[in-house]
């Protein structure tokens, strides 16, 4: 054999180099030497079966049958600990996309309106946003991957056993009476405080009470609705305390009250002044906007929990 076989040997050599460069340094030479000899022997037998000398095309077919270099190299590695376990892949992807989208949704309008960097000309705002807040939002996926890596290391170092599993509260309808009693007391205190402020502002006239003075329009139109809303919420709490459990009806009422609360607060935010003084009015509206977001988040979580309940399958009638 002379002349032509040099090409198949070079091809096998190139293939082996492509495999071993993906292996730990201390393994490379040993694995490379063995793999090259094994591939060459396999190719010789293949050529013998074909009744001709091995050529480049035959060598290429031989190594392609062996596998892609990255896949073959992966097989040399012992099975590792996945950074993102399959059961968490979906949640991880959602958390990544939602986190980045929220940052972009928050920063892009402000950047385009010029609030974030007023000195940047209007035509350059999008580009300036992309290289600052746009790309900057990608810290979030990096942060999540780092957290998952730490979690994977913890799982590997201290593997969990089945004995570590504890049931979560399976009875989601149970009402903790002490906690709900505390909630009821806090609600009553809040209403009392609100009424006390309104009364003291009307009774005493000094700079402190002036800061907390309600707008007359608010007191005339929106405040009474708020009182009705609070009364409904307190009635629901009392029912829950008495019954000690959630029922389908009380859950529906609670859901409706939360939605109504969001609508009411949105009305307060956009429907005119709450306080006479600007600082109190604006900070209260900011707080209300935040509360709306929290309640909407809680509603989404409630719906999710309802979805996660195990429902009977739809039976197929034959």
């Amino acid at each position, binding site marked *: 054999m002379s002349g032509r076989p040099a090409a198949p040997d070079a091809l096998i050599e190139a293939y082996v180099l492509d495999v071993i460069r993906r292996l730990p340094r201390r393994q490379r030479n040993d694995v490379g030497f*063995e793999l090259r*000899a*094994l*591939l060459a022997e396999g190719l010789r037998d293949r050529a013998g079966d074909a009744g001709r000398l091995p050529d480049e095309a035959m060598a290429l077919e031989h190594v392609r*049958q062996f596998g892609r270099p990255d*896949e073959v190299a992966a*097989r*040399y*590695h*012992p099975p590792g600990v996945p950074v993102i376990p399959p059961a968490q892949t979906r949640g991880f992807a959602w958390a990544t996309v939602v986190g980045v989208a929220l940052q972009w949704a928050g920063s892009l309008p402000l950047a385009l309106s010029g609030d974030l960097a007023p000195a940047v000309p209007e035509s350059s705002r999008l580009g300036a946003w992309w290289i600052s807040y746009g790309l900057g939002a990608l810290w979030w996926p990096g942060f999540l991957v780092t957290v998952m890596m730490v979690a994977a290391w913890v799982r590997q170092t201290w593997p969990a056993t089945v004995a570590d599993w504890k049931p979560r509260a399976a009875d989601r309808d149970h009402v903790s009476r002490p906690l709900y009693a505390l909630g009821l007391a806090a609600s009553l205190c809040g209403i009392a405080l609100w009424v006390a402020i309104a009364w003291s502002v009307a009774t005493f006239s000094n700079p402190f009470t002036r800061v907390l003075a309600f707008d007359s329009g608010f007191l005339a139109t929106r405040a009474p609705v708020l009182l009705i809303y609070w009364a409904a919420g307190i009635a629901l709490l009392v029912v829950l305390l008495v019954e000690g459990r959630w029922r389908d009806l009380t859950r529906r009422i609670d859901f409706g009250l939360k939605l109504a609360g969001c609508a009411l607060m949105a009305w307060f935010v956009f429907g005119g002044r709450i306080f006479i003084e600007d600082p109190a009015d604006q900070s209260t509206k900011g707080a209300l906007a935040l509360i709306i977001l929290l309640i909407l988040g809680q509603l989404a979580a409630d719906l999710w929990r309802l979805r996660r309940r195990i429902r009977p399958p739809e039976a197929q009638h034959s």
Partner: protein
Amino acid sequence: MAERPEEANAKLEQELRRGVIVLATLSQLREAQYGYSLRQALAEQGMVVEEGTLYPLLRRLEGQGLLASEWRIEDGPPRRYYTLSDEGKKLYAGLTASWRNLVDTIDRLIGPPAAGEDQSRKRKAAP
């Protein structure tokens, strides 16, 4: 995109075979073999294992302490010969017992071969 039935079948069969490759490999390494001769020995007895699967597997089993290996020069280029280590012999005995139990259980579950099934199996196994 939904997997085609033939692809799904091929994958399931591959999974089934993958589960026994380690036992098949250990069974042939009671005597020292190098990668290519091991593959030939397995293939001759009807267990065809891809080279790209078998050679890395030998290294992984060696890394786990189940195989011992050494370079030898006999009639040809240097070759790395693998054989069962003491740990590998213990594992082989354990896996063999498990395999026999499993075969008995599965045989009981699936029952005797249906008429014509044995013939078609023989035809399929023929080279």
